[in-house]
């Protein structure tokens, strides 16, 4: 089975691109693939723990936790992008990694396919 790397730069609230990225991750994992999800820019909002799940807004913490539990999914937030937005290490959801941008490029290096979803 293959490895899919997804880079997403859109915010969790205000766009459905992250919802799509996580749904696609779930579908790929169900088919037996491994998925790396890189979030940068406004998408680092996904890494923030403790977000209230209102019905009117996207809330993906539960789904991300389910995907992490499969062992075939890893997700990493751009550390600088997160810090710039005030998301500290202590604010990060359990299981979510934080690295610099070279992590994404390395994930692309070993990926069978890369899907880069821009921001806004």
């Amino acid at each position, binding site marked *: 089975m293959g490895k899919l790397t997804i880079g997403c*730069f859109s915010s969790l609230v205000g766009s459905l691109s992250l919802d799509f990225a996580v749904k696609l991750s779930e579908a790929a994992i169900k088919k037996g693939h491994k998925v790396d999800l890189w979030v940068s820019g406004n998408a680092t909002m996904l890494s923030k723990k403790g977000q209230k799940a209102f019905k009117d807004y996207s809330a993906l913490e539960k789904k991300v936790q389910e995907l992490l539990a499969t062992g075939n999914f890893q997700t990493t937030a751009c550390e600088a992008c997160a810090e710039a937005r005030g998301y500290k290490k202590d604010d990060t959801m359990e299981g979510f990694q934080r690295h*610099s941008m070279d992590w994404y490029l390395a994930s*692309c*290096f070993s*990926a069978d396919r*890369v899907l*880069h979803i821009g*921001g806004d």
Partner: protein
Amino acid sequence: MATKKLAFMVKTLPYKTEESRLALTHAIASQTVEIYLEDGEMVEPVVAFFGDGVMNCLKNQKAMNTYGVTSIESHLKNSLLLDLKVLICKEDVERLGLSEDSLIMDAEDIGGETKASIVPFTEIMKEMETSDHLLFF
């Protein structure tokens, strides 16, 4: 020796969103990617500006004065300083009424030797065809 070529395709305007800045900072991150790779493995970045994205290459940007942030110009010059391949779409330069003189073509002022190239879109297409992965910003 395994090398994967990543094409950073920049089509968005500067400053309106964070996209073009992130394209350049991610491309520059190729300089430190080895810490995650095995010996002999490399990432080769190429940055291509096309469509409205060529506006990122305008000289004399005043982002620090206006917004208090580093300019796209400084990131582009750093890319050239690090010998990244930078392509600018000729047809879009002409479409927007720009000239080579108005664009950031080198980083000589900070010691860079590599120059950007204004090339027909067919050349950019060739870069895309020879890249392992395309990242559109």
